[in-house]
């Protein structure tokens, strides 16, 4: 019986590199190192949107998506909510959070209450504006669109996991003239948000947003770790393509062919440690 699957040895090295990157950067940030993360346009627009709602005397709507707290995009959405709620508390705007999961409702209440507290407006917070609607996709959306048409919120925020309902939400929000800011990691739904919303956080940006807004050091560290992973990907890709190009131009070079074979079939493939 084999104790170690040698064909996966190089994959193990890559796994260690990626995971190690996350761990090292988290530790670096924890030890007080200041690491820079760039601004994200959609996040800056949040303040403007909440401000406009305040001027117009209309509420802000926040939709944390269709999935439960066990899905990471939902957790990221709740972090964005925390930021939106703090600005809303500062501006004295109303924020409405209908959820499709009871756990999300509980988490949202905690988050918004904490945000109001940190803005020094603990007295203005009320549980009534954060509530559970239903788990079912279309009934939940029917409720949301009904609310939007009746109350005409001036700003709509969507952050979390969205499926077919993305289109209905964005279309309705557009028809009532609200500023819309969306973020999701569902690639198939991004086009509708991009086409119909004012700002969209694309894929990984949603996770970045949560880390960025949370200002928790270990979260920023993990982001840096992800960047290290992307760098690794870019280097492997660039080096590999250059070797492949050289190998194509010099078909007789045995060394180049071997190098390409090693890279594609051993390092990134199933050929074992070579």
């Amino acid at each position: 019986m084999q104790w170690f699957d040698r064909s996966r040895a190089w994959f193990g090295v890559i796994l260690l590199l990626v995971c190690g990157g996350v761990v090292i950067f988290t530790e670096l940030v924890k030890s007080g190192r200041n690491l820079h993360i760039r601004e994200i346009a959609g996040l800056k627009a949040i303040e403007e949107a909440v401000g406009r709602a305040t001027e117009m005397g209309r509420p802000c709507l926040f939709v944390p998506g269709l999935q439960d707290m066990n899905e990471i995009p939902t957790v990221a959405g709740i972090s964005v909510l925390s930021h939106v709620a703090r600005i809303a508390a500062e501006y004295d705007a109303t924020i409405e959070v209908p959820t499709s999961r009871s756990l999300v409702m509980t988490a949202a209440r905690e988050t918004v209450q904490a945000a109001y507290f940190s803005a020094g407006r603990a007295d203005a917070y009320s549980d009534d504006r954060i509530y559970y609607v239903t788990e079912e996709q279309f009934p939940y959306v029917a409720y949301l669109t009904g609310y939007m048409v009746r109350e005409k919120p001036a700003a709509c925020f969507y952050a979390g996991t969205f499926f077919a309902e993305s289109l209905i939400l964005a279309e309705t929000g557009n028809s009532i003239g609200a500023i819309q800011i969306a973020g999701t990691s569902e690639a198939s739904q991004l086009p509708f948000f991009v086409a119909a919303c004012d700002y969209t956080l694309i894929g990984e940006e949603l996770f970045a947003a949560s880390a960025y807004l949370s200002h928790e050091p270990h979260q920023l560290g993990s982001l840096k770790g992800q960047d290290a992973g992307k760098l690794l990907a870019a280097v492997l890709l660039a080096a590999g393509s250059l070797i492949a190009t050289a190998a194509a131009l010099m078909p007789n070079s045995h060394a180049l062919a071997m190098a390409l074979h090693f890279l594609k079939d051993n390092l990134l493939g199933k050929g074992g440690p070579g």
Partner: protein
Amino acid sequence: MKRETIVWTILFIAGGLFLSYRAAFSPHGMGKVYVKAEQVNPNSQTDLRTKYIGARPGEKGAVLSIPRSVGLWLAALFTLAIFSFLYRDNVFFKIAESVMVGVSAGWAMVTAGFWDTLVPKLLAKLAPDMTRAWALPKLEKTSHADPLYLVPLVLGIMLLWRLAPRGGWIARWPLAFIVGTFAGIKLTMYLDADFVSQIRSTIVPLVVVLQSGQLDVWASIRNVGLVFGVLSCLTYFFFSVEHRGIAGKIARIGIWYLMITFGASFAFTVMGRIALLASRITFLFDDWLWLMDPNHKRPWEPFFSG
């Protein structure tokens, strides 16, 4: 009455009149489902029980099935009830919606939950003899009770503890088991299939030379576009660098790539939604109203033969 209301009312009345005309005056009617009897166990001499399976009208032994015809009409009316929401929210839509919520939840519990998992995967492991005698007579005679499966049973009961008034935290154990297991599985799987494999697939020669030694211009441009695209999109997602200067320009190209990606996704999604609508309309016209019959399911000449 508003003009618009009149238009819609006329549409509805016309539809109703057409339906009654079709049902009453066309020679073969519409919306009927036929079945035929078949022996449950065709190879057995002793087991002579029969069951009904779907049949085409005119087929040998085909008889009209009342429950299935009722079902077909119900299906058609539910479809129309859902579509009626486009006009405005109404009582038919709400009924259809309520039925959908109830049936889908019950159906998932019965199939995926009970008969497909709990019985064959838990009960059959814990009490094989009993399960065999009850519901799975074909379960292997050799299988023994496997006490290891008490673990998932206990974890399951802990999960249900959430329903109890206190001690809900106990449900965190099975939750932690699920989350932990899948964190481990997903970590390796995503890195393998989405990280390593995608890098590997993108390693292509930037200059493609044909067997004859000639340069394949199109293929070279494609490959350059692909590699450069992946790199520029990765630059866009890079969080440590501001989108300024060279990095900003590359990130900008990255976002153009992403927009084209989304444009393609957009078009495909639109395409899919339309396909589903077309299939629903085919269902109404073909299976229910018998206006058309492209698959030659019925022996009669259809209303529209195309």
